């Protein structure tokens, strides 16, 4: 890739030398407005949060910060509540990613066979992904309403009813309810993306494997899985990062409660900033989330490289 660009560079350079604007500075002219914009509205705020995480700052008097070094970090990591928050975040991310990529793959395999009305089926399955999180939180809360919610009526009817029906007020059932809602919203994206990856599986290979008497599972593992593996990896990575930062759905359904049983990092961060008014602690919590995301990204690159090496061998 880089080699290609190198060999091409002199040629285009010569063609454009006449006008000074068409030379080395051209790319910077094109990207300057966007880069400046991102720097102002993402870069500077991020830098401010990094700084804030080393200070004690109140929301009520935000211009008055006291430098406290690593105290905020020491404080949160020494806090049992924060460790529980980390654990809940881990559970939330792992279940959502595995659940939505797993069910997305099953649905993609189901829709990958040719049948009449496949286009319609594919479109309808995508609906949850397209629905705004606010609307999803609203309808989920209504469906889970203790007295009149359809979910409780259904659970009662099949004999699995939760006593009192207050699923979102229960420390046991609130998190599962949020996990199911998130997975419901995420699996369509996985299935649509995997469906397009499945188009890349060579038909003659799967047919040859079946003809040789290979079972479906074997064919899937030996042929299909090898083709879609990178896409699955990419989806898992994207969904992990998105799940770490997901806010609306959880906030609007439970606000992290009851008793912190659905409190993920981002919920904790928001509550620290706006309920406890501790901007420094909030920023430190946010930084932990960012660093975790960075580690996930770096780790995935490492795994992808190792897999690549394995393949070329």
């Amino acid at each position: 890739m880089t080699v290609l660009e190198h060999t091409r560079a002199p040629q285009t350079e010569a063609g454009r030398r006449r006008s000074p604007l068409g030379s080395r500075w051209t790319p910077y002219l094109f990207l300057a407005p966007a880069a400046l914009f991102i720097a102002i509205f993402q870069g500077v705020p991020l830098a401010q949060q990094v700084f804030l995480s080393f200070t004690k700052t109140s929301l009520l008097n935000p211009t008055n910060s006291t430098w406290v070094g690593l105290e905020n970090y020491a404080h949160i990591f020494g806090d049992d509540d924060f460790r529980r928050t980390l654990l809940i975040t881990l559970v939330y991310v792992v279940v959502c990613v595995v659940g939505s990529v797993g069910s997305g793959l099953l649905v993609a395999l189901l829709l990958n066979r040719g049948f009449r009305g496949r286009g319609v089926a594919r479109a309808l399955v995508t609906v949850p992904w397209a629905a705004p999180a606010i609307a999803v939180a609203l309808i989920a809360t209504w469906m889970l309403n203790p007295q009149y919610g359809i979910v409780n009526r259904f659970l009662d009817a099949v004999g699995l009813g939760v006593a009192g029906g207050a699923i979102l007020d229960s420390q046991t059932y609130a998190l599962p309810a949020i996990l199911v809602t998130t997975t419901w919203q995420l699996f369509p994206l996985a299935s649509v993306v995997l469906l397009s990856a499945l188009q890349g599986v060579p038909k003659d290979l799967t047919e040859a494997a079946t003809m040789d008497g290979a079972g479906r599972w074997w064919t899937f593992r030996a042929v299909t899985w090898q083709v879609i593996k990178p896409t699955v990896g990419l989806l898992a990575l994207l969904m992990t990062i998105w799940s770490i930062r997901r806010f609306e759905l959880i906030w609007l359904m439970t606000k992290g409660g009851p008793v912190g049983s659905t409190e993920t990092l981002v919920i904790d961060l928001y509550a620290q900033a706006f309920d406890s008014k501790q901007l420094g602690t909030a920023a430190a919590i946010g930084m932990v989330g960012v660093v975790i995301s960075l580690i996930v990204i770096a780790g995935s690159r490492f795994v992808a490289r190792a897999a690549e090496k394995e393949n070329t061998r």
Partner: protein
Amino acid sequence: MSRLRIGLTLRIVTVLFVIGIAVFPLYWMFVTALSSDSDLFAADARLFPDFSQFTGFVDALTGGDTLRWLRNSLVIAAGTTVLSIGLGIPLGYALSRFSFVGKTLMTVALLLTQMLPEALMVVPLFALFNRFDLLDSLTGLILANSAFVLPIVALILKGAIDGVPRELEEAGRVDGARPFTMLVRINVPLIAPSIAAAAVIAFFHAWNEYVFAVTFIYAPQMQPASVGIASFIGEVGTPVQTVMAVAFMFTLPAVAFYLFAQKYVVAGMTAGAVKG
């Protein structure tokens, strides 16, 4: 033969079951909006909409709040779309066509913005907007939303421009066209489908956005629909039918447009992320 038929039937049933799971909540939103009070609170739930009970929709449309909310959302979403596409096209072009110092850094920075939670950025942006008098204004929300969606838009458009043959530009270059002219005349028309997809993503990112809107807007007349609808959660004063009617009108455009643009959105997202 019969085994085949059983397999086929089983597959059809499974597909219908999956579709049912996917669409039921939104269907239920619609049914609830079109329910009489007695059906809503009866022991047996009514599973089909009752089209004679449309007061929820009438209330939603005549109450005044709904239309204003939707109008504000429309302004924010349209502004975000124009701004992020306007900045995203040249950025995507620079990333696709040129090799320059800092290119890798720029690409990595764009990808890294994907992991910054809005909830983390809301405090410093609040301070920034406070200083420049952008609180309680739709302009502030347009700026904040554009900053969050611009990286995705730029990566999608970069992927699209990657697909335009360079030969087309070489021809223009011989005629003495400047890079900017070539971008507008040659590339933009060719990547129109991807621009449309990126526009859909940008529009509904802003349409759905909640955290910034709820934090930066105080005046009720400036509230977008996301904040208005969220305020219904846990509130008991408004009839459930009206609430669901408003939410349905908020949801329908998002679902319709995403379905329309789905092919391009998926292609753009995977291309942007894989190649980025």
